[in-house]
């Protein structure tokens, strides 16, 4: 789990079953393991009122294990972009009593949280657990372009090509870390690129 450095840097918890009538899980790849671990602590019948939205990794692991939980619904979209309309629809029609659980990569948690915040759920009311890759979703503060799955420090902006220092400064509104030009004074200065967020 990521350590807290500066105040906007999100910290994540461990999923625990909340009281409530409806439970919505949004997970990707290794996030399935957080759901499976939590299932061991959940009361009988918990998944009867649960919907799991799961974006499997390329290896397609954990699908059978999630099916075995017998949730009311299991939906497996190929990408976050493709699950977005459905997620928005679910949250628009939802009532108080729906509990939200977000688990997996930071990019997934942050983007799902962004949608849920707009729907009126306070971020402190959501259950989150980070699992899997530390890859970051990064906004270039210069061109405002978002680069997904950033694993290096510094990182290249996929939009304007600037070399960016990936800061811990996080925007909940954008669901992205901020990237700031690392060699603005002298563009010929190229610091070594390291795998910082595997």
């Amino acid at each position: 789990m990521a350590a807290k450095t500066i105040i906007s840097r999100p910290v994540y918890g461990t999923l625990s079953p909340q009281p409530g009538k409806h439970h919505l899980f949004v997970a990707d790849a290794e996030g399935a393991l957080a759901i499976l671990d939590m299932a061991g602590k959940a009361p009988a019948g918990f998944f009867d009122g649960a919907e799991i939205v799961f974006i499997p990794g390329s290896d397609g692991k954990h699908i059978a294990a999630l099916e075995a939980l017998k949730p009311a619904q299991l939906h497996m979209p190929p990408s976050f972009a493709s699950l977005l309309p459905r997620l928005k629809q679910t949250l628009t029609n939802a009532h108080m009593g729906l509990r939200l659980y977000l688990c997996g990569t930071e990019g997934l948690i942050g983007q799902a949280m962004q949608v849920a915040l707009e729907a009126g759920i306070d971020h402190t009311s959501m259950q989150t657990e980070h699992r899997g890759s530390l890859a970051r979703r990064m906004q270039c503060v210069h061109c405002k372009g978002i680069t997904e799955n950033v694993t290096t420090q510094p990182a290249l902006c996929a939009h304007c090509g600037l070399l960016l220092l990936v800061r811990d400064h996080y925007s909940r509104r954008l669901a992205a870390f901020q990237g700031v030009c690392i060699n603005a004074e002298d563009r010929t200065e190229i610091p070594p690129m390291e795998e910082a967020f595997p």
Partner: protein
Amino acid sequence: MSTGTTKLDVVVSDVVPVNDLVTRFHFRRRDGELLPTFSGGAHVVVEMRDGDRTRLNPYSLMGSPLDTREYTISVRRDDVGRGGSLFMHRSVKPGLEMVISYPVNLFSLDLRAKKHLMLAGGIGITPFMAQTAQLAGSGGNFELHYTCRTASLGTYADVLQQRYDRRVKLYHDDRDERIDLDRLLSTQPLGTNLYVCGPAGMINWVRDRAAALGWPSETVHFEHFAAPQPGAPFDVALAVSGKTIRVGSQQSLLEAIEAAGVDPPYLCRGGVCGQCETNVISHDGKFIHNDHWLSEEDHRSGCKIMPCVSRFEGKSLVLER
């Protein structure tokens, strides 16, 4: 002293009987200036000079936050209470000069909410008078459910219905009308915040059902003005100020500390805000914790006490005051 607040010199500009139990009081500043701005749900602590005794009671501001020419509070008479409400009803007349605290809000609206669901019981309606006025002024989405014993004791029910029509729903005990709470809570759109003010039993009922039905605790707000419970007198040593005091049976520990000339911080005087939290240096006896502030662990530890509502029975008690 009420922490972070200075005091306001006011004059009682009007006293209006509302029904058999409730009287409304209007205050204006003695210097004729506007009163400080406040937000819906705020209260003031009213100082009452009752003979050689000073009573300090908190009351919700019920006027519109959009109008600060005057403050209004409504006081429900409690014939078997400790005497503050009786003093207000019997001795406070127009023209009387009084001192009140600056407003403090421990029951504010969460303005990020998409909808505000309000539940009031009896005199618990007063903070909602200001909150509904605030929301109505900004086009806010709210719904108020108000339970009262009888129509004649439905304080301001007529005013609220006239102002807000179907956004207000009344329930009368004598007609056996009850809030269908589970249904009400289960049909609220995502992003709703819940506010409840009324008797302790009602607050507990609403909080319990909301939690069971999956409402996150951050979305449930409540306010209960608990008067300090009476009890057997006890002696307390104050280590920092070097005084030993006796707490009378009808007096709270906080009041006894104040009467001894020590000026501890406070805000709510009802065991919820945490301002008067005091360290216990030593004790031999049993605490009667009546507060909602300290954790159960704090209560068991015997290291902390909330002097506004909590008492003690035993041989000795030394506090860090």
